[in-house]
C-alpha cells in the first residue's frame, strides 16, 4: 500500500527536500509539496515539516492563510497530520521562542526553552532513545532500539495524556505527541535512517 496521497505543507521554511526524499525512497509516488487549498483538501494525509524558528514559521503559515485551511481540514474533516520538529511545536497553544507567539492550539501546552544542568549542551543534538508511551501508530515498527535524531533548543511542555514518547536529556523531553488524528514528533524521522523510514511507513500504513 503505497498509493496514499501525501501533501507536504509548504510554508517557506523547513527542509522539505529531505522529507520528500525519505518518503520517495519508501515507494510513495503521490507526494505533493503545496500551499494550495485544493491540494491539501484532496490529500489523504498531511505533513507539516520543520527546521526553523517558531515565530518565523508560524508567521509564514499565517501569511499564506494556511492556518485557516488546516483548521478546517484537520479539526473538521479529521485528516491525519504529522508535524515534524518545529512543525510539531506549532501544534502547541503558544511558544516562548523569541517572545511569546501563538501556535495552532491543537494540542494544549507550551513550547519552552530547554534549561538544563551545565553538563547538558543546548541545543539537544544527536541520537537519543525514545521511551515509547503509545506504540500505535507511530512506533509500531520501532518497539526496540527506538533511537532518533534530535536537533532543538525548545521543547513542547504538554499535558501528559498527549505524550506518545519522551526522551531523557536532563529532564523528560517530549519526543512525540498525539491527539486523535493529530501527531507530532520532535525528532527528525527523515534523518533517522532506517528507524525514521519505519516510522513514516507505520504512520502511512495506519491510514486507510
Amino acid at each position, binding site marked *: 500500500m503505497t498509493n496514499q496521497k501525501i501533501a507536504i505543507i509548504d510554508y517557506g521554511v523547513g527542509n522539505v*527536500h529531505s522529507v520528500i526524499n525519505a518518503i520517495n525512497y519508501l515507494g510513495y509516488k503521490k507526494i505533493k509539496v503545496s500551499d494550495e487549498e485544493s491540494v491539501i483538501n484532496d490529500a489523504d494525509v498531511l505533513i507539516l515539516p520543520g527546521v526553523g524558528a517558531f515565530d518565523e514559521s508560524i508567521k509564514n503559515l499565517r501569511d499564506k492563510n494556511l492556518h485557516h485551511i488546516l483548521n478546517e481540514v484537520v479539526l473538521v474533516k479529521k485528516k491525519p497530520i504529522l508535524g515534524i520538529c518545529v512543525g510539531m511545536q506549532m501544534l502547541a497553544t503558544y511558544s516562548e521562542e523569541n517572545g511569546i507567539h501563538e501556535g495552532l492550539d491543537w494540542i494544549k501546552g507550551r513550547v519552552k526553552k530547554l534549561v538544563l544542568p551545565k553538563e547538558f549542551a543546548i541545543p539537544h543534538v544527536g541520537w537519543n532513545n525514545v521511551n515509547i508511551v503509545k506504540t500505535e501508530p507511530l512506533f509500531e515498527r520501532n518497539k526496540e532500539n527506538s533511537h532518533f535524531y534530535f536537533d532543538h*533548543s525548545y521543547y513542547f511542555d504538554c499535558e501528559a495524556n498527549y505524550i506518545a514518547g519522551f526522551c531523557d536529556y536532563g529532564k523528560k523531553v517530549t519526543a512525540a505527541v498525539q491527539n486523535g488524528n493529530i501527531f507530532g514528533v520532535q525528532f527528525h524521522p527523515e534523518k533517522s535512517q532506517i528507524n525514521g523510514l519505519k516510522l513514516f511507513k507505520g504512520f502511512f500504513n495506519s491510514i486507510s
Partner: protein
Amino acid sequence: MLKKRIVANLVVKDGIVVQSKNFKNYLPIGKPEIAVEFLNQWGIDEIILTDISASFNSTLPDFEMLKKVAKKCFVPLTVGGGINHVNHIKKLMNSGADKISLNQSAINNPKLITEAAKVFGDQCIVISIDAIIENNHFKVFDYINKKALNISPAKFAKEVQDLGAGEILINSVDRDGSYLGFDIELINSICDAVTIPVICCGGAKNANDFIEVLKKTNASAASASNFFHFTEHSVNITKANILKKINVRLETFADYSNNEFDLDFRLNKKSDDILEKMLFIKIEAEII
C-alpha cells in the same frame, strides 16, 4: 541517553571529495554523492560537507551537487562553503541541507550568524573554526588568507555562541591529515568556553582516537574525513570498536560484534569453525 556522534567530514574541492593534509595538500577521492551513499549505508551518524573552493573562488554554494548528494543521505547533512547571505541558506535548506556551517562569514560578517539563527533557529547554525598553533598558543586560522588571526579559538567560539550559533565544529590545522590523534588540549579549551555542542575534527587514525577524545573531553561528536575513505565498512568497524567503551549508535546487521581485530583495528580472519557455521545462517533482508 544521548549518544555520542561519529561524523564524517567531507572536504570538497572543485566538485570532488579530496583528502586534505595540513590545509595544503589535496588528493582526489571521488564524487561527493558516492562518498555520501557509502557513508550513509555504513551507518554514519551525520555528514558535514564543506566546499573549500566556493569561498576561495568567491562562487555561490553548489546547489546542484547538493541535490544529488542529498538523495543518498538519510542522516543529517550539514553544508558549508560560500555562504554569505540568508538567501543562500534558504536555498541550501530547500536543496537538501539540514544544517549549514559558516567559517569565513563567521570571521568577516558575524551579523549573518544572528540573522540566520533568527530565521532558521540556532540549532541549524554550525560555526566551523580552524585552529592553528602559533608561538605555543592556539589561534583562529583564516584559510583564505592563510594566516593566523589574533584571537584564540576558545574566545572566538564563545563570541559566536553569543551571536546565536548552535554548534561548534573545531578543526586543527596542525593535526589535519596527520593521523596523530585529536588535539585534546584544543578541544577542551573550546568545550570549557561554550555550552553548545562541540564537534571535533583533525587527526583521527583509528577507533582509539575517537574513544580517547570522547572520554577526555566533553565533545558531543568526533569527526574524521580522510580516515573513512580508504577501507570497506570503515564506519561500522570503527563504531563497533568505539561501542565497547562509549555509547554510540550501531544499528546494522554487519555490526562486527563477533570479529577480532589487530592492534590497528584491522579485521582478523574468522576461524574456520565460525566460517563453516556461517554457511548455514540465512540473513533476512530488513523490512522497513
